[in-house]
């Protein structure tokens, strides 16, 4: 039992460790004997540093947009009794099933000619929102559908609360754990999204994964590996922080 666990863990970790190692040795083909260096890391940072910031910025913007669009939409779908709401929700989930390349192509066909839009980060952001919105709507929507939430809303209404008052004061806090979990999901998906972004990017609008692909394709192996290290250094703390916030909120608002 232990042997199996250890073997599987080692098998999974080995590529990651090797990749990290490759980023800090002077020459990968000669291995550790060639000595360690931070040269590759610095080179990546000077060459691709802006893609890291862009990815973080797009991920944050994507979370904000998914919240603003997704939470009210999830509520509307959860309370709607019409059959069209079900169809709409299925339609909303399509971008998850359809290959990102196809959604990207559709976006290019529709808006590719709007040069200003096409050349800005907003173009990539729109793609990310289309891809991540269903996760937000599904996760928050199922929380809104809980029976006790219907009663909470009726209680707030009986006490005179207007729609805005009860939506902000009662409903959102009651589904906050689900919202936080969905935000984490949207952030993670956006940061790692490659498929769609690769089709939508321009030389001036590149995100971290696109830069990573570029460096793998055109640079030394060590630079590509150093890029992976940068990715981990930047993304892991952010994800840990988000997860910690999620735990705190769950503890405070959960039952």
């Amino acid at each position, binding site marked *: 039992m232990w042997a199996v666990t250890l073997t599987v863990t080692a098998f999974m970790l080995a590529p990651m460790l090797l990749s990290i190692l490759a980023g800090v040795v002077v020459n990968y083909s000669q291995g550790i004997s060639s000595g360690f260096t931070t040269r590759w890391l610095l080179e990546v940072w000077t060459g691709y540093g802006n893609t890291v910031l862009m990815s973080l910025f797009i991920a944050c913007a994507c979370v904000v947009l998914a919240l603003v669009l997704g939470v009210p939409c999830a509520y509307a779908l959860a309370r709607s009794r019409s059959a069209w709401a079900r169809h709409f929700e299925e339609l909303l989930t399509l971008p998850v099933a359809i290959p990102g390349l196809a959604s990207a192509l559709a976006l290019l066909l529709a808006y590719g000619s709007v040069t200003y839009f096409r050349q800005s980060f907003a173009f990539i952001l729109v793609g990310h929102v289309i891809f991540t919105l269903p996760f937000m709507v599904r996760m928050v929507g199922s929380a809104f559908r809980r029976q006790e939430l219907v009663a909470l809303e*009726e209680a*707030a209404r*009986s006490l005179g609360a207007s729609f805005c008052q009860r939506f902000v004061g009662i409903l959102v*806090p009651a589904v906050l754990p689900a919202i936080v979990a969905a935000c984490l999901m949207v952030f993670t998906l956006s940061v790692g999204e490659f498929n769609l972004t690769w089709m939508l990017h321009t030389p001036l609008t590149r995100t971290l994964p696109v830069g990573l692909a570029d460096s793998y394709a055109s640079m030394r192996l060590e630079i590509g590996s150093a890029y992976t290290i940068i990715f981990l250094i930047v993304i892991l703390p952010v994800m840990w922080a988000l997860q910690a916030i999620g735990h705190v909120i769950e503890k*405070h608002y959960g*039952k």
Partner: protein
Amino acid sequence: MENKSTSIDIRQCAKTYPDGTRGLQPTDLHVEPGEVLALLGPSGCGKTTLLRIIAGLESADAGSYIGFGSQDVTHMPIEQREVGMVFQHYALFPQMSVQANIGYGLRIRGASAEEQRRTVGELVDLVRLNGLEHKRPAELSGGQRQRVALARAVASKPRVLLLDEPLTALDAKLKETLRDELAQLLRQLRITAVHVTHDQQEAMAIADRMAVMKAGQILQIGDGESLYRNPSHPFVATFLGRVNQLERSADLLAHNQIMLGDVVLPCPDSCAGAAQVLLRPEDIEVCAAGTAGAVSCAVSRRVFLGDRVQLTLNVGGPNPLIADVGRDHAANAGDVVGIRIAPHHWMASRV
């Protein structure tokens, strides 16, 4: 706390669901200011529908009228009706403290901080939640949650208080204590209240009057005692307690008499014309066989129920009679006993 109690007037209120089922037949109901009225009936009888229509959570069919005092509230949304509502599972706001829950309605209506503090303090005292003001609902017991729900509902001095099975979520023992507490609180607050329940004991303990409902209709309205003693419908009689139902032949009906075994007994004038008469088990006097004026019958079953003994008596008719006697009564299964019934105990059943 002073309340601006109001009367409730319901005229020709009906509810038809989109699929065509009638949740509520056209109903008239009047509740006096400060009166506690119970809507009593089995599940699916329309009592909750009627309550939700009064609250404004459900819209009544066209032609219905709902008035609070002299104001027509038929088309007024619940947010403006100034009602307080206690829900079956309380629906307390989970992320808020006891204090914040109770003060929510005041906060929403923009009451001053001073007024909020004072009212919440008064209510915490009234429902004895002192020391728990900063707890969250999840940290409270069922009884405490129920009291928070009540305090929250009355905090903004509603015109009408609506209680939807407020004690159902509690266990039997606690229910009894809280029932009396709730009855006392409602009297103290002197608030017009409509209380939905399927428990006749709860309705009798809490309400001034009760309306017994069945299949979307109010069958009879009155105080507990008169409904128990003079039910106008066999359903009311059976729902409020157990009852023996006896049929009368045309001949007996013409003379307003009833036959038990081979003995013909007179019925009171109130039973004249009723083909079916009703008799409460506790109104049957079980005495020794052969007592003057007693009908003799055999005891086919004896069940000890703690505070009383229930006897099943075979009087020769198609249905046996059920009689309740004191727990020390000597009758045993197989014995032959005599029964006597004071004429005024017979109740008419008019359908």
